[in-house]
């Protein structure tokens, strides 16, 4: 053990007026790490799923994000093209390297240039998937990995997210449960990004402005995949 560590730990224990925690206490502490329990969870998002979708949409809009509901994944390329046109943005996209996004009917949009990979400095718009949508605060949760480069969430000025209805849950606690189920207990991807609206700052005279360093626009394509889920897809 490093002497600096030893120094700090013994100072802590001196202040706590004990050596190691007792075996009894230790067992409780181990339990708290091995099997985390939710504390008080607000009622707000403990709703039937359809209402969670509505809450998610409402919260996102309140945050100055935009939301479009789509009947199926196949509608994504058209919706992306429409959005870029509507915002007067170049028809170019840096897309997360995911099979499901790759499989979409991009050929239906011949004018749209789609490239995969991490974000480059000159990319104006990114398209990513999400890990979860947390209705409580309209938060989109991203889990980094080979299919989810983190730079796509922050470097471009415009960020489009494909969020499936089945990914929408009520609370942060539910998101952790899902993440543990996907990754294993106590294991985290390198980065989990909870994104709640576009980048903003209030640093100049408390005036809230969008697009400080991260994306100026956050656009969520809310895809209804519930039929697919119900049929066990």
């Amino acid at each position, binding site marked *: 053990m*490093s002497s*600096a560590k030893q120094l*700090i*730990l013994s*100072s*802590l224990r001196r*202040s*706590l*007026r004990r050596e190691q*925690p007792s075996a009894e206490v*230790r067992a409780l*502490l181990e339990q708290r*790490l091995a099997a*985390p329990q*939710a*504390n*008080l969870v*607000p*009622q707000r998002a403990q709703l039937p799923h359809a209402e969670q979708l509505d809450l998610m949409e409402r919260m996102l809009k309140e945050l100055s994000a935009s939301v479009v509901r789509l009947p199926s994944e196949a509608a994504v390329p058209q919706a992306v093209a429409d959005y870029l046109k509507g915002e007067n943005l170049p028809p170019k996209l840096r897309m997360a390297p995911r099979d499901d996004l790759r499989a979409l009917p991009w050929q239906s949009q011949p004018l749209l240039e789609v490239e995969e990979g*991490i974000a480059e*400095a000159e990319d104006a718009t990114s398209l990513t998937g999400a890990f979860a949508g947390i209705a409580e*605060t309209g*938060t989109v949760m991203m889990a*980094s*990995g*080979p299919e989810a*480069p*983190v*730079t796509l969430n*922050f*470097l471009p000025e415009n960020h489009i997210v494909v969020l499936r209805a089945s990914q929408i849950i009520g609370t*942060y*606690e539910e998101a*952790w449960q899902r993440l543990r189920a996907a990754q294993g207990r*106590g*294991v*985290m*991807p*390198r*980065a*989990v*990004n*909870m*994104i*709640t609206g*576009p*980048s*903003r*700052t*209030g*640093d*100049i*005279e*408390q*005036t809230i*402005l969008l*697009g*400080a*360093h*991260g994306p100026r626009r956050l656009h969520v394509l809310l895809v209804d995949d519930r039929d697919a889920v119900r049929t066990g897809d």
Partner: protein
Amino acid sequence: MQSTSRDFKDNARAALANQTLQKAMKHVKTGFIDKRAKARDRLPEFDDLRDASRDIKDHTLANLDFYLERYEEKVIASGGQVHWAPTAEDARKTVLDICRRVDARVVTKGKSMISEEIALNQAMEEAGLDVVETDLGEYIIQLRKEPPSHIIAPAVHLTKEQVEADFRHHHRELPPERPLSEPLQLVAEARQMLRRRFLEADVGITGANFLVAETGTSIIVTNEGNGDLTQTLPRVHIVVASLEKVVPNLEDVSTILRVLARSATGQEFSSYTTFSTGPRRPDDPDGPEEYHVILLDNGRSNMLGGQFQDMLRCIRCGACMNHCPVYHAVGGHAYGWVYPGPMGAVLTPNLIGVDEAGHLPNASTFCGRCEAVCPMRIPLPKMMRHWREREFERHLSPTAVRAGLAVWAFFARRPKLYHVAMGLQARLLGYFGRASGRFDALPFARGWTKHRDFPAPEGRTFQQLWAEKQSGKAPR
């Protein structure tokens, strides 16, 4: 940072006479307070979540050695490194060693109060590094070579005209006739100037709002996205965090996050809450190759188990200063060191000593608003009183204060007399102040009312109210 806390009185006098500062401080008084109140009203469980958050931190502090060791194990298991730093000097040295080893030239930084506490920028600049603050507020004060004046809004003491002048002075490469009077133009210009720096940085340094023992994760909570660019783009990410930031698990941190943004800016949740665990994984397409956490003690382990332990629950939301009449009047720089407002008045003497900062606990009207809004239910006025008592015992107080306290002590030890004296005073004041509910001048306390209104008592003393409350008479 060199402390000028000894000069609090002079600092405060200068601040009160500074018209530009007074203009800038107007925004604090209204903005933050209204927004927090709205956010609180929207969440019925808010006050219960404050209790839950307090309990989580109390539990963690009682077992801090255990949780820190488990946290370290998890960081190492995910490929990161933990450096224990007993003092500010140790922390600075560790950062410089890492920068030297990886041959760093440009270092970007996310906003970090710990970095201010250990005066990291100065040390790095002296070592020849090109250090760039990337939070807009921090960037502005770095250009001005000033310390932050608020823990979450470092440039809150400035007007947009001052920022415009700074940008024109420092961004010489841009066309001089460009329009720059609107906040939006200033934000866009900072974005443009900092973009290049993000991309060329070798090392990115951030603080941490929380550390999670369950997973070995560090968390930053930001709105601009600068912290994320700072920690994602360079080869090396260094986290500087003090040891009381640790919490047991992700559920615990979720509870505290629910009160953090609401108390700070009145947002339901900040734009970016980022959970970082170790360096880039073998199949990750981006992220830093090295991940270091510097765990700073700097006096905190001594606060544990003592009169000031509760202060270690602080999550640096800034609500106490946003609601503090003294902070409103004098701004953050008057406090003379890194942490201003009520939390600074309690913390600063703990960190730099009562000789340096003994005056700060006097920067209070004991109105109690700080404790009433603190999401972690930290008894700030009580702890300021502890400092005053200590200062009094050490006879550091000016004679007049000692005499005043001696009078108070005389009455306080004689409850009957105290009641009579206070009751008389409260009734008189209540009578004269009835029209507006405020006094704008009190003949025997000019120093007080020159810069603030004195609230007129409602005609009853605290003791009377308390007695009524105890007997169930008074409404809540």
